[in-house]
């Protein structure tokens, strides 16, 4: 078709590979969903997801029967793995919102190729995160007691408790992320409805697309809505991990009670989130041949964000240590000293290695431009960030004020099973998503093409 042979080199510099047209972009992304042939990679990933999901269901089933005692949580370490995993998962979700909302407001158009699956990652990570506080309740089936509702017991939640703030912050975050994601999907669902040949798919995508037809009137409202939702999601995402950090800072436990936790937690969240974005994007672009849409530049930009947030996290570790010394408080001193030399020193020094030392390799362009190395470093960061939460939670609780109440935390096999199980839940949901919905925002990638610019006549 004549319009599809425009010379892309003559246009302004774009982030996606040259040679794409509106048609080929649409077809390449939509085919992943509409094809009848599913690649073996998908079955492998989905299979791992299902096996681990079954492990999760088994652990949760056992938890319902026997109670939270199947986990290693014993006095004084009552938070253990559950809250570690909660904080880790919810942090991972933050990169999705950062990419979709903050980078939209900053007009970073390169994000258009990665925002869709990053937002999906957010949703599924929040779903996994939400499991832990609920399962940790002891009687998870009474979870609705967390919400204020008129009841015959005549009691209400304590609105002065950070744990109740968390309920509101996380449920608002989940709802707003889901809404933002769905609004972003609407035009692409219409594309799938128009491209599919199967009657059932046309019906299903048609219902979901709600009759979207790309009218200019709709687009103008739509653009306002995306901008407003981005503006709302931006303070929200910063608030969520702030509120999570309040769970710690408002307590007086040594090693928790400090004012720099909110920015430290938000930076850590974005750090681990970008690591997860890279860990997902690198295999996906290779398997589905999307290197032209998710280019090396995307990976490099994400690596740079990772490096920057990693340095903020490194600064936070240094301040944490400095503050403990500067307070001259014996409990703060010993909290940090126990972390460095006590029973959890292996975890502490591993987290320093994973989060501070290893990512320094990202300064080098040679490392940033090799997807395999980036994948490796993102996995290292994910492990490091998990260890960070583990050390903060477990070491502070295990050795707080009075040595007579100290006790060492031992994770049980069910701790590990539940944790691996949520990774299964995540993979299960994520692989369903890449099979059923376009993993790259088709309409936003179209706007990246040089042909999408309206050429104004001179003197018009």
């Amino acid at each position, binding site marked *: 078709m004549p319009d599809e042979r425009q010379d892309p080199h003559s246009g302004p510099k774009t982030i996606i590979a040259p040679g794409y047209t509106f048609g080929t972009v649409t077809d390449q992304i939509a085919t992943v969903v509409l094809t009848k042939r599913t690649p073996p990679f998908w079955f492998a990933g989905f299979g791992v997801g299902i096996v681990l999901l079954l492990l999760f269901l088994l652990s949760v089933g056992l938890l319902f029967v026997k109670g939270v005692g199947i986990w290693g949580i014993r006095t004084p370490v009552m938070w253990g793995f559950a809250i570690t995993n909660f904080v880790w998962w919810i942090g991972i979700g933050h990169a999705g919102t950062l990419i979709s909302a903050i980078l939209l407001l900053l007009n970073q158009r390169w994000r258009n190729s990665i925002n869709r699956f990053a937002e999906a990652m957010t949703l599924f990570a929040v779903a996994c995160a939400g499991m832990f506080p609920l399962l940790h309740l002891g009687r998870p089936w009474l979870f609705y007691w967390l919400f204020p509702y008129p009841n015959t017991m005549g*009691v209400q939640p304590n609105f002065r408790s950070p744990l109740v703030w968390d309920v509101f912050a996380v449920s608002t975050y989940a*709802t707003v992320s889901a809404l933002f994601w769905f609004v972003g999907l609407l035009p692409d669902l219409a594309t799938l409805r128009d491209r599919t040949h199967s009657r059932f798919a046309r019906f299903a995508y048609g219902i979901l697309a709600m009759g979207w*037809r790309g009218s*200019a009137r709709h687009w103008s409202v*739509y653009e306002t*809505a995306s901008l407003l*939702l981005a503006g709302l999601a931006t303070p*929200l995402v910063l608030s969520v991990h702030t509120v999570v950090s309040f769970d710690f800072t408002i307590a007086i436990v040594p090693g928790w009670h400090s004012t720099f936790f909110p920015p430290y937690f938000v930076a850590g969240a974005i750090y681990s989130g970008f690591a997860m974005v890279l860990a997902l994007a690198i295999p996906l672009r290779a398997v589905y041949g999307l290197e032209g849409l998710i280019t090396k530049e995307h990976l490099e930009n994400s690596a740079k964000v990772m490096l920057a947030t990693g340095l903020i996290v490194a600064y936070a570790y240094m301040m944490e240590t400095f503050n403990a010394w500067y307070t001259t408080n014996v409990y703060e001193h010993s909290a940090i000293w126990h972390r460095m030399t006590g029973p959890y020193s292996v975890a502490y020094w591993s987290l320093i290695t994973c989060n501070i030392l290893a990512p320094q390799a990202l300064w080098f362009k040679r490392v940033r431009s090799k997807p395999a190395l980036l994948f490796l470093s993102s996995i290292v960061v994910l492990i490091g960030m998990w260890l960070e939460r583990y050390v903060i939670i477990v070491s502070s609780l295990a050795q707080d004020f009075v040595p007579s109440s100290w006790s060492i935390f031992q994770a049980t096999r069910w701790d590990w099973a539940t944790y691996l199980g949520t990774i299964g839940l995540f993979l299960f949901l994520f692989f369903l998503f890449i099979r059923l919905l376009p993993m790259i925002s088709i*309409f936003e990638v179209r706007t990246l093409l040089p042909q999408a610019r309206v050429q104004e006549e001179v003197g018009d």
Partner: protein
Amino acid sequence: MTKQLYGLMAEFETPTALVAAARAAREKGYRKLDAYTPFPIEELTDALGLHHNKLPLIVLLGGVLGGITGYLLQYYVTVIYFPINIGGRPLHSWPAYIIITFELTILFAAISAVLGLLALCGLPMPYHPTFNVPRFALASRNRFFLCIQARDPLFDPAGTVKFLESLEPREVSEVAP
């Protein structure tokens, strides 16, 4: 038959052609027109004069309502319904209310943004005459359409076809109602 027409639709191959056509149609005096594109085009919004919508107001009202709800909920529960005196601390402990007030502001504003978007676009709309044009499926892929509706006072089947054809579209089709 002509009485029952929804309108006439012209198909263009580039956004530039569509924006030029939309401007020409506005200049000619057509007002009941709409364009259909695979992605948002800012110039088109200008060309069709669509800059104002009520969504920001709806979102503002939603946010204010959410904030008031969040604050009053906590005030009612902690001061009136379930007051607990802990060491003589004030019941109306407003600093502790900030977070939930903020969260509900965002929640209500975001929900009203989405419901407002759907309401202003008239979605969900299971049927629309434009879908009767077979090539309209390409409006979600790589084609750009301009539709002049039959209810436009200047619309007359023969003249409007002639006008649309003067814009050098790929094709002009009738849209059955």
